[in-house]
Each structure stands twice: as structure tokens, then as C-alpha cells.
């Protein structure tokens, strides 16, 4: 700390001439030294600080396994999980299951995203659309989507269609809600500006409505991505004969905790990669906002 040391003048005057030189002391008292306030914010961020916690957990896990403090049947060692993962990958089981799962999540997500955006635009841009759509979606949202599984199995059978349909519903709700809220929240002053500048309806949507609603859309998109993985896990663990969740469900029956952990790691990678991808696109598309926050 550079502020810790008092200035030489103050110290010297106090010691050298305590009583003889009264005006000097007065001068010292008149100009008290500014003490820097105690900082209440946590200060500068450490480099790569977000990795510290996970790496520490991994290290603890490895040390405890090596020391034999963990039951290998309940929590296998990290290297066992890695070995199992490599084995499952090389014999092709894991790749097939991953591809099946990705196809389900991807199709459901794509349909849900399209439906969410289309409905939000229809409800946000016309009063008739709002009257028809908004209340219906709000009602749909009140029912937990996973509770629809029995009904959808009856309607669509237990095949791929019903799984994709459930994931699409899980995705479309947050996409719709956030995009619609963003559309409704577009500043009316910008609408007025568009009228003054003589924009056509199409130009208005493309140049003001869509860019104005994008921040909200991205919030919905990230929630939708998370929702699609959540729906996938539930569907595959209770109603599937293939896919990643089925692999884990089988492993539970045979007591293979290492296989379950491999499945969890893959799910984690899915979630992390998709969220990072959305964030990357968001940063690109909303680059105008960066200047605001920085």
C-alpha cells in the first residue's frame, strides 16, 4: 500500500519541534492526510478463477480414490471412469447412443425454437394474434410439460415422435415467453421514430422489432437449450430402448456406476458446449451492447 506511510512533513514537524514552532503544528493540523477508504468490493478477479473449484474437486476425488477411502462400487476412481469411457467409445456403443440422443434433442429443440419465435412474433405484432396465442401459451405453461408424458404416449405411441414433441414443448415455452416479453417491451419512442422515418411494415419488423427483441430472445434461447437437455434425460431414462439415458438406466440395473458417470460427463459436455455456443452467438449478434456494459 502506497498510502500507508504518512508524509515526511507531518512526522518530522511533530518530532523535531513539538512546542517551539507553534505555527508549523497548526499548518500540519490544517492539512490532515487523506486516508484511503477500506475497500468493500472483492477486488480484482484472479486469473482462470472459475476453474479453481472444479480442479480442486477432481484432485480430492483422485486422492481419495488412490488412498482407498472411496467404495469403488459407489464412486469409481476418475481413471476407471476414463477407461470405461474409452472402452464404450471404441466398441461403438457410446457413439450410437450419443448420436441417438443428439438427434432427439436437436429435432425437438429446432421445432420448439421455430414454434416459440413464430408464436411470439404473431402475438407481439398483432392484437388478434395476442388474443389467440398469449393466453393459450400461458395456460400451457402452467402445466408441467413432463406431466404430459402419459397422454403423449397414448396419442403418439412410445416412439421417437412423442419424445421430440415433449422436448419441443419444453423448449418453445421459455423461447416464446422471453421473446414475447421483449417484443412487448420495445420502446414506443422507437415505434414513433419508425413512423416519422416512413418505414414500411416489413422494414419496421426487420430494423426495429427484431433487433429490439433479440436480447430477450437470447435469454429464452439459453433457457430452451437447458430445457432440451433436461427433457432428454427424463425421457430417455423412463421411456427409451436406446440413447444415453437408456445406457445409464441399464448400468443402474447392473450396478455399473462407472458407466453412469460416463453418461453424466457426456451430458455435462453437451450442456457446457451448447451454452457456450449460444453465448458466443449472443456476443457476436449483440455486440452493440458490449459497449454499454464495459
Amino acid at each position: 500500500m502506497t498510502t500507508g506511510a504518512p508524509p515526511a512533513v507531518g512526522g518530522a514537524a511533530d518530532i523535531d519541534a513539538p512546542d517551539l514552532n507553534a505555527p508549523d503544528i497548526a499548518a500540519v493540523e490544517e492539512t490532515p492526510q487523506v486516508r484511503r477508504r477500506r475497500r468493500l468490493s472483492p477486488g480484482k478477479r484472479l486469473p482462470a478463477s472459475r476453474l479453481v473449484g472444479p480442479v480442486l474437486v477432481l484432485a480430492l476425488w483422485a486422492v481419495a480414490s488412490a488412498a482407498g477411502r472411496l467404495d469403488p462400487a459407489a464412486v469409481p476412481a476418475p481413471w476407471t471412469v476414463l477407461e470405461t469411457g474409452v472402452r464404450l467409445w471404441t466398441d461403438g456403443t457410446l457413439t450410437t447412443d450419443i448420436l441417438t440422443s443428439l438427434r432427439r434433442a436437436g429435432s425437438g429443440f429446432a421445432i420448439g425454437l421455430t414454434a416459440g419465435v413464430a408464436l411470439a412474433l404473431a402475438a407481439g405484432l398483432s392484437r388478434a394474434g395476442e388474443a389467440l396465442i398469449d393466453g393459450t401459451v400461458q395456460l400451457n405453461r402452467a402445466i408441467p410439460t413432463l406431466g404430459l408424458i402419459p397422454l403423449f404416449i397414448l396419442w403418439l405411441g412410445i416412439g421417437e415422435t412423442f419424445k421430440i414433441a415433449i422436448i419441443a414443448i419444453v423448449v418453445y415455452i421459455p423461447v416464446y415467453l422471453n421473446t414475447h416479453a421483449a417484443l412487448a417491451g420495445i420502446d414506443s419512442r422507437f415505434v414513433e421514430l419508425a413512423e416519422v422515418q416512413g418505414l414500411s411494415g416489413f422494414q419496421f419488423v426487420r430494423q426495429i422489432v427484431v433487433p429490439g427483441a433479440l436480447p430477450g430472445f437470447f435469454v429464452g434461447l439459453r433457457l430452451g437449450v437447458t430445457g432440451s437437455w433436461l427433457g432428454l434425460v427424463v425421457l430417455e431414462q423412463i421411456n427409451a430402448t436406446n440413447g444415453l439415458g437408456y445406457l445409464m438406466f441399464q448400468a443402474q440395473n447392473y450396478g455399473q456406476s462407472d458407466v453412469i458417470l460416463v453418461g453424466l460427463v457426456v451430458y455435462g459436455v453437451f450442456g457446457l458446449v451448447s451454452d457456450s455456443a449460444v453465448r458466443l452467438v449472443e456476443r457476436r449478434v449483440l455486440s452493440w451492447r458490449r459497449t454499454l456494459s464495459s
Partner: protein
Amino acid sequence: MATHTEQLTRPAVRLRGLTRSFDDRTVLDAIDLDLPAGQFTALLGHSGSGKSTLLRAVAGLDHEVAGSGRLTAPETVSVVFQDSRLLPWRRVLANVLLGIEGNEAAHRARAALAEVGLAGREEAWPSELSGGEAQRAALARSLVREPELLLADEPFGALDALTRIRMHVLLRELWERHRPSVLLVTHDVDEAIVLADRVLVLDQGRIGLDLTIDRPHPRSYRDPLLGEYRERLLTALGVTEDHK
């Protein structure tokens, strides 16, 4: 010069019995008004006197306001608002280009930005501009459309005093060069006197005073002859000697 005088005889804006009311409260009460083409007019009034309502009526922006009367205005009208109203997701040049298309549009937009002193800031984001710069960009956006009528709704109200004086000079220069009809709504008496050739005072929904200010430009705030106009305007606004 001859064509200019001739222009002045043809009204750009014509109001006949213009009435506007909100919830049975009459804000504009049967106003008759002609604004000659190319004239710089200021409209003064208290807050709530209806001056913005009048401007919005001329701009065609009063969608859900009850009213009657006849109103004619030119085809190309530009509006400058109190806030710059730049779209935060478009760079400055793209903001100026809002609503105009064509091959030479970008060229014209660059020229307009240069004219308001923003050359070199074309690729900046609106959030990177100061208040004065943002309002200059808004002026460029309204000029690039080459309007016959420029409506300005307290365009300098949110700026600091020094920036405001600079913007006054700029607006007057731009008017000299492009000669649109200008209707400047303001509550600042000095702003109206320094800029406009005709000052209207809106009071209780009617034009209370119609004053032609016959002084050469550029005008100084310290010009003693303008003091007389200031007195008359302040009296029309109901500010008497004891209030000052």
C-alpha cells in the same frame, strides 16, 4: 432571392380550426395558422400548453387523439425529438440511413454527418456518443431526407447550456443552407428569440401572440434590442415583473 420571396408566399403548413382534446380537456382550441415555406418559426408555451400536441398533429403522430379541423403539411417532413432517439443496435451511419434507400443514400448520409461535424464517427455506436453528438446525429438523420418541413420538439432541452449554444448556431447554419420550413417547439424564450424569425406563443389552446423578430443573424444573447422582444414574450407567457 426572387424565388425565395415567392416561396415565402406559399404556405407550407396550413391549420384551419385545428382542435385536439384529451378526455374532454381541450388542448388545442380551433387554431388557424399559416407557416410560409422556408420560414423559421418558434412555438413557445408553458409545459402542458399543448405545443407538443400541435407539433405531433402536424407530424401526423396523434393516432388516438380526438380532434377536428383541417391540416395540410408538405410530403417530406422530418422530426427531431428531445431525445436523439438513435437505435442503439445500429451504428451512427446506419441510424442516419434509417428509412432511406438507394445507391447514393450512404454518400448523402456521410455528407450530412460531415455537415453536423460528425465526420469520422460513422461507425461509432450511439452509446459512444455524448449527448450533443447524439443530437447532431439526429439532426443529420432528419436532414438527409431533405425535408420541406423540419419539426423540432424541444431538441436541445436535454443538453447542457454550452452545448445548447453551439447547437443553436449549427441549426441556424443548416437552415440557411437548406431552407426548410422549421417549426421549433421550445419553452426557452431566449432560444426562440435567437433562432427564429417568427415566434408564436401558445396559451390556453390558442395562439396568444404572433411576433415577427426582425433582427439580422447571427444574433447575440446580449443584443439589447432583443430585450424588447423578450419582454413582450414573457408578458404573453404570463411572467410579470415580480416573477423575474
